[in-house]
């Protein structure tokens, strides 16, 4: 029984965190607020040099075959340093192509994703969000598969060389995955205003986009569900990183900020907020670690615990980054303070791939409803 990361995993974390602190951090995050997705292009080379891109891919194609458990600490470091790069999208896209793609696709796409010459992104915003997200349909016309529709909230779209998106194939009533090249005909791209300016968003419109050879990835719904599960855990881990950094900085602040003749951190009201936040952070940490491990072990319980981890980390990150503003007092509400950068990022991460309440509904179907069908207990071993 050893419920901890290995020394090797810790060493990788330390080195990646050091690199991210040097290359990213609040300053680069702020720059992204001004310049948008371009920043990602300038980071791609550095990340590729360190073997951080496409890390889930097989070594044969230049990847490092890192499991989600191996990569979890990298996502945490990305959160801590507000890295303005679609790193999770990169990991998920490469892992999907590695697992479901054919040989030619792997040869072509994985080396491009690993080397950073192509930045992949995912059109994985929720289709059922009630804000005009309609999804994309694939229609077969004279032997050619064409895409029609629009996907909003696509991260770093303007820097992306390829957009992996789920499309609905009307003739076969199935979900298909397409690697869409946004520079081709039949595509238009617009940028959307993003509250978390370190995560630029775009909308992609497809008006008869012709799916070419090698752009259709196998796996369909199963592959997309796998992407969803991986994504939940990765986002949870980034949210943890964001929250723990904001927390650490707030803690440093209340130790030095003086009122009533001493540091405000000596007051119980402040201490109790800090203790509550710390407990939530440590709880999110073990939930994430467990979920990462389950996914890496290909456990059938992965979707349940991925949803749990993401819901818990979302609640934690929103609360802790909010408290970090509060603990800073007036300065915490300024643009000059970095606290809003963490706060906005936490809330953005919490909204992705389902609200915490949506995820708990997913869990309820597995825990409450499945148990009812089985008639005894709820189907899990204690």
């Amino acid at each position: 029984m050893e419920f901890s990361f290995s020394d090797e995993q810790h060493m990788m974390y330390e080195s990646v965190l050091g690199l991210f602190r040097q290359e990213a951090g609040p300053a680069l995050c702020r720059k992204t607020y001004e310049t948008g997705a371009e920043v990602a292009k300038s980071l791609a080379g550095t990340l590729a040099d360190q073997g951080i891109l496409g890390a889930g891919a097989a070594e044969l194609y230049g990847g490092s075959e890192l499991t989600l458990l191996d990569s979890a600490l990298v996502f945490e470091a990305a959160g801590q340093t507000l890295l303005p790069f679609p790193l999770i999208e990169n990991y998920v896209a490469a892992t999907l192509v590695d697992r479901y793609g054919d040989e030619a696709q792997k040869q072509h796409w994985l080396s491009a994703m690993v080397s950073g010459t192509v930045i992949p992104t995912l059109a994985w915003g929720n289709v059922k969000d009630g804000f005009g997200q309609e999804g994309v349909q694939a229609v077969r016309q004279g032997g050619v598969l064409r895409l029609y529709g629009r996907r909003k909230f696509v991260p770093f779209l303007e820097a992306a060389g390829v957009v992996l998106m789920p499309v609905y194939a009307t003739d076969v009533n199935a979900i298909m995955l397409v690697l869409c090249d946004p520079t081709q005909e039949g595509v238009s791209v617009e940028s959307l205003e993003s509250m978390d300016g370190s995560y630029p968003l775009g909308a992609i419109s497809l008006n008869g986009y012709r799916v070419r050879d090698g752009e259709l990835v196998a796996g369909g719904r199963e592959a997309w569900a796998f992407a969803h599960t991986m994504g939940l855990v990765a986002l949870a881990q980034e949210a943890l990183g964001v929250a723990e950094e904001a927390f650490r900085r707030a803690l440093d602040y209340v130790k030095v900020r003086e009122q009533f003749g001493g540091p405000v951190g000596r007051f119980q009201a402040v201490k109790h907020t800090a203790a509550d936040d710390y407990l939530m952070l440590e709880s999110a940490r073990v939930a994430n670690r467990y979920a990462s491990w389950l996914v890496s072990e290909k456990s059938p319980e992965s979707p349940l615990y991925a949803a749990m981890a993401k819901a818990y980390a979302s609640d934690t990150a929103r609360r802790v980054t909010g408290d970090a503003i509060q603990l800073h007092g007036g300065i915490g509400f300024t643009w000059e303070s970095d606290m809003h950068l963490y706060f906005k990022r936490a809330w953005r991460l919490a909204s992705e791939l389902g609200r915490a309440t949506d995820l708990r509904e997913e869990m309820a179907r597995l825990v409450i409803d499945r148990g009812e069908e089985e008639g005894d207990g709820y189907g899990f071993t204690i």
Partner: protein
Amino acid sequence: MDLQFNAEHEAFRERVRTFLQEVLPDGWGTPKHPIPTGASAQAELGIWWERTVYAHGFQGISWPQEYGGQGLSWVEQVIFSEECARANAPAGVNGLGRGLLGPTLLVEGNEAQKRRFIPPLLAGEEIWCQGYSEPNAGSDLASLTTRAVLEGDEWVITGQKIWTSYAHLADWCFVLARTDPSVPKHRGITFFLVPMHQPGVKVEPLVQLTGEAHFNSVTFDGARTARENVVGAVNDGWRVANTILSFERGTTIVGRHAHYLREFETLLGVARRAEGANGSIAKDPHYRDRLMKLWSDIEILRLHGYQVITQLQQRSRLGPEASMLKLYYSEMHKRLGELAMEVLGGAMPYSGGLDSEGGGSLHRAFLWSRAETIFAGTSEIQKNVIAERVLGLPKDSR
């Protein structure tokens, strides 16, 4: 990362399961064989359990064999607690001896004390209670005023202790008493072992809000104990006492998740049968969300447990992070009890109610959980400990 127990540990788990099946009646804790209620029946059950566990070689699992323990590791201890929680096994009456005094003696006691006190503790022949809190020394325990004075070869103890669980059954009490009033409060306290059966000790029951009387007021009026019944040095009792607190807060928590998961399952059964404004409570989005929040909290307690096992294997002691676990489980259990009462709806006032499947376990959890955020250090104290010792915030301004 490896969450598998090895073959040896799994074999141990099988042994524990077999033991529990053998000794607990069929259908234990279900309507088929409800757990006895009433003070004397529970006391009898508790003593029987202590001795049964000992007779089957499961007492003091991680304690050295030379003092009657089993010489195994924390992992086996955790497996045992987990299986007991799953089987709803009785709690016993010597938890303070097993959870607090024993571990302290093993670390702080001298050889003679270990040989004298640990074997009968494990055998369930001597029951222990804890003489810490006083009417005017609760969270501020170090301001306690019970005095101990050396007269010849005996310490003479005078003062009142309160919230003393199992004092009415206990043979011995471990007592914190002031031995030097002239120094700052933390430095003049000594840790004593005091026999309960003597004229200078008076035990009066205190009825808890559950209606039971597990705890008591204990008055020491010139009670005596032998000069050698001091653990650690005279006036070093505060440090000795703090050695145990982290045991109390940490290691007893591992394994609890199985107990809470069982309560959750009962709650889920109730939710399926209970009707609300939108039909079955188990189909109501509001309650589904809260049920899954609670389930997450219980599962995360299991994971915190894995973390504790990992730490104990690496450094065999727990520090202030034990406060975190105590805070976590006690607050969580309060939420469990409250949610259960809300789910019961109009049946909530009836202790049997829809909860009959769990034998009233949800009502018990609901009421008992109010104690858990108070005993062994209130939630507020735990938060101070976390803030100061883990997060490094400055002391002061209570």
